[in-house]
């Protein structure tokens, strides 16, 4: 750069520092002191990052664009962008108007932090484009009038930040808080603490959810959380008369036609006739198309429509269709007999069962609703029954079943959420749910929202599905065997 160009770049840089100080950093102080918007510990870190970027600007003004200054600015921009991303993730998915802290021009401060740090990276890139090798050499330079103003403003603004930080977070060793109180000069209102140090270190926190594995549960009925359950005996065993492409994940039976729907953990969907010995239709879903499908674990009939569910609560609706368009369906299926059309592929969204997998799907024709039962994990020990409208596929209701009189837990530390429901079906207004853990059948009253009865079923071997066949229950196992039980009377 020639000297005039260099002077111009330095003047621009000085103004960038001034804008940074007077804009986001100064505004933050004003919001805190005058408006009572105290920053949380994450806000403090991001504000500090902006201050440090401004400080790097002062270094460049004083000593020239040395590589280590630019390197430090890039690191601060990159880390600041990461901090803003991490912070924003707490709030971006909330409902309208539910952001955290103040919004400036309709955008909350944690998003502004994102914009500012990203802009810093862009500015550094431009500066590097303009830089010549000899520009980085030399000793200290006079910062010029604008530069001196920037330095003075820096001291004033950072001193104000220091004052606010002293009041809001205290002297060492105290640190900032997640939920800071509003600014006050009255020491009685000051909160100085180290609450943020509590808790263990985790990479993913509440998102640390292992994939459900029914094969790993304890099948012994004697170990279940409910005490003194009656026994429901297996009356006999049947077997699907067709080979499957994977482990059987669930089973459903159409009460009108008697046809049976079977799904596998390898995305196989089989429509069988009432003898379960002949395949009427078969497809293998493409699990990577459009939305991700995890292994299939739920099946239900919705009239003539076939509903299948994967463990991540993604669902697919299919229909036998003699006029299926092979060219269109190629995108949906890895394999097909040519007689099936995909109608819909989407996801169920839950509230209480969020961050939980499911291993079952039922359809309640009386309410026209799909039903899932969540699988507990070490992070989220809840057994949640979720109902979704057939009309818009959104959550209709959700509940954690209570226990009916006569049902008791073995101890105060036991809970219903120890059951791992792997199959469910609705009949006579009741939800029949089989748990692979402790080989137990739960009968849930959907109106009363409670477990009406429960039975241990000795002989089950970690089942993966359940279907209703008139007065019988068919409890499916991964290898295609079906335990036949008399369905408990309503």
């Amino acid at each position: 750069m020639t000297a005039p160009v260099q002077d111009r770049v330095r003047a621009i840089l000085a103004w960038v520092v001034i804008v940074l100080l007077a804009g986001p950093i100064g505004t933050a102080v004003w919001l805190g002191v005058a408006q009572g918007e105290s920053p949380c510990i994450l806000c403090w870190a991001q504000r500090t990052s902006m201050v440090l970027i401004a400080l790097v600007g002062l270094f460049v003004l004083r000593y020239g664009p040395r590589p280590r200054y630019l390197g430090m600015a890039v690191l601060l921009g990159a880390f600041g962008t990461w901090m803003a991303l991490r912070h924003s993730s707490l709030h971006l998915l909330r409902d309208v108007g539910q952001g955290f802290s103040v919004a400036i021009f309709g955008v909350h401060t944690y998003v502004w932090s994102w914009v500012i740090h990203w802009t810093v990276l862009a500015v550094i890139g431009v500066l590097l484009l303009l830089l010549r090798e000899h520009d980085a050499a030399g000793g200290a330079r006079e910062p010029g009038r604008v530069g001196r103003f920037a330095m003075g403003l820096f001291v004033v603004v950072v001193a104000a930040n220091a004052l606010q930080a002293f009041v809001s977070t205290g002297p060492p060793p105290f640190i900032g808080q997640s939920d800071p109180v509003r600014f006050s000069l009255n020491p009685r209102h000051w909160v100085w603490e180290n609450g943020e140090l509590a808790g263990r270190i985790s990479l993913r926190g509440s998102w640390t959810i292992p994939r459900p594995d029914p094969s790993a549960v304890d099948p012994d009925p004697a170990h279940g959380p409910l005490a003194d359950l009656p026994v429901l005996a297996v009356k006999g065993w049947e077997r699907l008369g067709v080979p499957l492409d994977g482990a059987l994940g669930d089973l459903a039976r159409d009460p009108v036609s008697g046809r049976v729907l079977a799904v596998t953990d390898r995305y196989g969907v089989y429509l069988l006739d009432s003898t379960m010995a002949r395949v009427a239709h078969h497809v293998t879903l493409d699990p990577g198309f459009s939305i991700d499908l995890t292994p299939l674990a739920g099946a239900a009939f919705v009239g003539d429509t076939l509903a299948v569910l994967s463990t991540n609560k993604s669902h697919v609706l299919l229909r036998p269709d003699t006029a299926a368009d092979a060219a269109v369906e190629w995108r949906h299926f890895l394999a097909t007999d040519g007689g099936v059309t995909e109608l819909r592929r989407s996801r169920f969204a839950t509230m209480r069962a969020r961050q939980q997998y499911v291993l079952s799907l039922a359809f309640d024709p009386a309410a026209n609703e799909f039903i899932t039962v969540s699988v507990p994990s070490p992070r989220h020990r809840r057994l949640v029954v979720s109902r979704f409208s057939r009309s818009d596929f959104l959550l209709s209701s959700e509940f954690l079943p209570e226990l009916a009189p006569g049902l008791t837990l073995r101890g105060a530390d036991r809970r219903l959420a120890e059951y791992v429901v792997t199959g469910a079906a609705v009949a006579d207004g009741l939800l029949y749910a089989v748990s692979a853990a402790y080989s137990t059948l739960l009968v849930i009253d959907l109106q009363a929202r409670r477990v009406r009865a429960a039975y241990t079923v000795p002989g089950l071997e970690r089942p993966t599905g359940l279907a209703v066949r008139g007065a019988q229950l068919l409890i499916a196992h991964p290898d295609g065997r079906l335990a036949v039980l008399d369905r408990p009377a309503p």
Partner: protein
Amino acid sequence: MEFLNFLIILSAAWLVWRRPERERLAFRLLVVACALMALLFFIGTHGSLVPGVNL
């Protein structure tokens, strides 16, 4: 600790402005302030280091 960090930053800025010959010390203070900021952010997010969304 945020208060302490701002004092460190102020010290570095003062050196840059009024004692430019102490550049090495000022830069070291800058590095220390960056590290302290990162540490405080780590403390604030140690329960879930990465964003709490589908990754």
